[in-house]
């Protein structure tokens, strides 16, 4: 990477199952206000904005229209990426590294509670010629992937029950989590089958929330109070085609991690990274991601926030909640180096990750 970049401001709303008291604009205004206050800057100092969202999550075509106002970024360079918030972190980092712009905000939000037909919208993401006409519940993609992954990895369904229960319990200590619960692996095992071997208890439930980050160049970040340095970013896709992707491994995370580890100079992830906040939209995905991240035996350092299973599935804000949890861990001294990772859910193979550190190496 050319030029160091840091997160100098982080603001979010607590994750909630529903947020009927505020519109998406009002919810975002709150998170942006917090982020700018945290960074000790005014909205006028934001030089560019990257938003991450999808039309059919918003119920709006060309939904990027509605991004600038609640971020205080009217008439400024604003773009929308249809990616997870961590894709946005990657893009914002590059914007600063061009040397043309010093401060960039990244925003992603979820008003998942406003979507009345979520499964139908997921179905609309399936290939219209080969997959959609079959009429399976779209979560069949996760069922296929989980079964193949367990078969190839030697892990069991019970291992996934343990992961899910762990994340629900971890969320008990996280005041902004929407789904904290004192559940045991048995409780998860007793939840109904969805797409065998996938159970209800393995699935992150949807929730509302907004995260806003402020990223700055080294010149400005050095003056900031508690900068968290971005050591490496990576993102990648495997095939979107169900037919031609590998089913038992997360090849996209492997490709993305190769880029990010190289940038961050990380050779032994499990030794050099203190904390992992990784995708767990389905419990098996946590294990799959750790394998792809080459992070074996780090069980007690994974998704201490509760992950998406404990905090809630916040659509494309997932990666930014993972990031926010890493930022807090680093600022609190609980970690020196942390990794945030996200996946965009079925039927995609789209992943993004970033590595954060207390110093810039």
């Amino acid at each position, binding site marked *: 990477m050319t030029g160091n970049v840091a997160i100098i401001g982080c603001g979010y709303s607590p994750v909630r199952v529903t*947020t*009927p*008291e*505020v*519109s*998406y*604009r*009002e*919810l975002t*205004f709150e998170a*942006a*206000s917090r982020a*700018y206050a945290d960074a000790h800057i*005014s*909205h*006028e100092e934001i030089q560019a904005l990257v938003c991450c969202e999808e039309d*059919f999550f918003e*119920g709006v075509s060309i939904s990027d229209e509605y991004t*600038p*106002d*609640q971020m*205080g970024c*009217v008439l400024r360079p604003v773009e929308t990426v249809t990616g997870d918030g961590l894709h946005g972190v990657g893009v914002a980092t590059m914007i600063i590294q061009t040397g043309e712009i010093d401060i960039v905000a990244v925003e992603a939000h979820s*008003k998942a*509670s*406003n*979507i*009345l*037909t979520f499964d*139908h*919208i997921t*179905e*609309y993401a399936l290939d*219209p*010629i080969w997959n*959609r*006409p079959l009429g399976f519940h779209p979560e069949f993609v996760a069922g296929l992937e989980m079964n193949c992954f367990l078969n190839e990895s030697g892990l069991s369904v019970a291992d996934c029950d343990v992961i899910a229960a762990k994340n629900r319990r971890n969320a008990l200590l996280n005041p902004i989590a929407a789904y904290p619960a004192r559940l045991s692996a048995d409780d998860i095992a007793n939840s109904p089958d969805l797409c065998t071997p996938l159970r209800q208890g393995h699935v992150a439930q949807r929730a509302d929330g907004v995260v806003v980050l402020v990223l700055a160049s080294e010149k400005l970040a050095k003056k900031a109070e508690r900068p968290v340095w971005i050591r490496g970013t990576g993102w990648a896709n495997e095939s979107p085609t169900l037919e031609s992707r590998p089913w038992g491994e997360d090849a996209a995370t492997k490709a993305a991690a190769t880029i990010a580890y190289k940038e961050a100079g990380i050779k032994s992830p499990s030794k050099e990274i203190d904390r992992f906040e990784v995708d767990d939209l389905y419990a098996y995905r946590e294990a799959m991601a750790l394998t792809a991240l080459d992070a074996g035996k780090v069980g007690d350092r994974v998704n201490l926030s509760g992950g998406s299973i404990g905090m809630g599935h916040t659509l494309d804000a997932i990666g930014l909640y993972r990031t926010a949890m890493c930022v807090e861990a680093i600022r609190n001294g609980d970690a020196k180096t942390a990794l945030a990772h996200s996946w965009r859910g079925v039927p995609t193979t789209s992943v993004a990750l970033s590595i954060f550190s207390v110093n810039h190496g």
Partner: protein
Amino acid sequence: MKEPKLGTALSSEDFKKKRVFTTSYKPKAEYAWDTGFAIGHYLEGLKEGKLLARSCKKCGRILIPPRAFCELCFRPTDDWIELEHTGTINTFSLCYITWDMRKLTDPVIPSVIEIDGATEGCGIMHMIGGVDPKAIQVGMKVEAVWKPADEREGSITDIKHWRPIL
């Protein structure tokens, strides 16, 4: 440049005569958007026959549609202001096509109407009616024609249209 690569044109005949295979789908994409503080009040105001705006004491603007924050000053807005039921045509069109491309004999007349009492230039999109389309001009004064109170439902369509004040 080279000759373009692919982009094979099909005619409507090709579809009618099933020369190419197709699939079709109608997504079920339904939403209930939280209206929140600003728009929740705005809709209730319409139900009551009021046009509500929000003021920002920092920049002095009076904003319609109302918002909970001033997008320029980036601070919460301060007060509710009830606006006049009159305004000025900022721009308009005579449209002979519906949103789903059906043709109309008599045009619908969308317009941006600057509302009296709001900051100059601050308007809403709404319809002009009750007038010969040929007579409409930019700059014309108009007034709101409301639906009767018992037909209003907390929607922008609680105003039927805006009629020129002749």
